[in-house]
């Protein structure tokens, strides 16, 4: 079902855990499946020095959390914001269609953590929206009966 990369990041997740006194923390829930992800950031000079995650979710959610944290580590806030869920999925050699929404969780958790960081530090980041309560998205499935 999952690619080898997904299985690798699922079984050996990178950056799993918490950061005490994090500069930004974002927690989001997925409206579609109810799963939950939290991302912790340590930011210095606009650069993400450290990042950790905790995920209550499926294999794809764990793997995208892991991959997303890998991708943003060492990046500037602006660079981090450019990383889409599609990029994360691609870095994992793709996700099953029914699991694409899981990768959104990682994107949204990251944005929520950056928003939190920005709020705490009185920074305005252009184009960054406050985190939604839930991630809503279009049905990507076809008409089911």
């Amino acid at each position, binding site marked *: 079902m999952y690619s080898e990369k997904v299985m690798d990041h699922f079984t050996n997740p990178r950056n799993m855990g918490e950061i005490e006194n994090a500069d930004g923390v974002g927690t989001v829930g997925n409206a579609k499946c109810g799963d939950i992800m939290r991302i912790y950031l340590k930011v210095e000079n606009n650069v993400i020095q450290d990042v950790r995650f905790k995920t209550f*979710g499926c294999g794809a959610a764990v793997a995208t959390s892991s991959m997303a944290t890998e991708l943003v580590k060492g990046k500037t806030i602006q660079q981090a914001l450019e990383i889409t869920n599609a990029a994360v999925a691609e870095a994992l050699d793709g996700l099953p269609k029914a699991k694409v929404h899981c990768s959104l969780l990682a994107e949204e958790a990251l944005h929520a953590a950056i928003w939190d960081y920005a709020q705490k530090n009185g920074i305005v980041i252009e184009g960054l929206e406050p985190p939604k309560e839930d991630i809503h998205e279009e049905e990507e499935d076809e008409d089911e009966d």
Partner: protein
Amino acid sequence: MKETIYLDHAATTPVKQEVLEAMLPFFTESFGNPSSIYSFAQDSKQALEEARETIAKGIGALDREIYFTGSGTEADNWAIKGVAESYRSKGNHIITSKVEHHAVLHACEYLEKNGFEVTYLDVDADGIVDLEQLKSSIKDTTILITIMFANNEIGTVQPIREIGRIAKERGVLFHTDAVQAIGHVPVDVNDLGVDLLSISGHKFYGPKGVGVLYARKTVKLKAFIHGGGQERGRRGGTENVPGIVGMAKAMELALADMEEESARQRELRDYVKERILEKVPYARLNGHPEKRLPNNVNISFRFIEGESLLIMLDMKGICASSGSACTSGSLDPSHVLLAIGLPHEIAHGSLRISLGESSTREDMDTLVEALVPIVEKLRAMSPLYED
């Protein structure tokens, strides 16, 4: 590769060697169409009728009350939509429960879109339907009660005889989806007062793609699949002779040692359940502790999510499931677990294991050994778990 420990017999079972052997001649040798009149086809016809007899006997029915179908799902659809159509002039109200299989629920929802009214009974914390609510839900327009025999996720066995009595008293037909029950618990349609009953071959070591609808001879049942004159004009389509023969053989074998084998599995079931609850904190058994299938264990682990759990078990060679197999592609939490009152995030972290004839005590130990560190690992990853 490591050995596989298959603990998902509620999803499907292997075909037994003896069953396969009973089927084989009907693929390549006695392959005649049972409707043909030449003597070459008499083997098929006779095998078909003997299978009907075996299955009829197995559930205490008459031969002519047995209709072969292409699956348990078809049997459920036929029972519900067939009764709905045949008795529409009498009324448009159907009673079911919130914990039915999707074959029943979605058939009912279909009828709701077509002018029928459906009452979905609540269940208690153990998954048992509320009989008082059942009684008070019956009205003049009620034509059918459809309540499953045993739940495929949590294993709870419903008070079928009591429901049968209520249905009879109130003059309402009673259908039960017995797909999970057959071969595990005794089923006698007259003793239980059941008017229609669904069976699926592959849940008791028979082949996939074949099922049975039992319909009491007094039930007016319109055809659902229209076609040739097969199944006394009620279900068109060339009969799946090998599949039907296999299903009958499987039922015969299952019934032959059901008492012993169920007792054996029940013991394993209770053993593994206790071991898990003992070793893993924040875990709870779902479903009724005693009124449950002898082979079903369903446990929720707080703070973790089911799919992750299953994948990690899979990596240890253990096949288990998180709900019903046919909805494992779905993202919604189990409607059954929600119906017994579990909150969403707990419902999401449940594990179903269903034992079979091959299951041993050693398998149970292996499972528990694998499970403990997996749950710990996933909890360490969980934003919900603070310890």
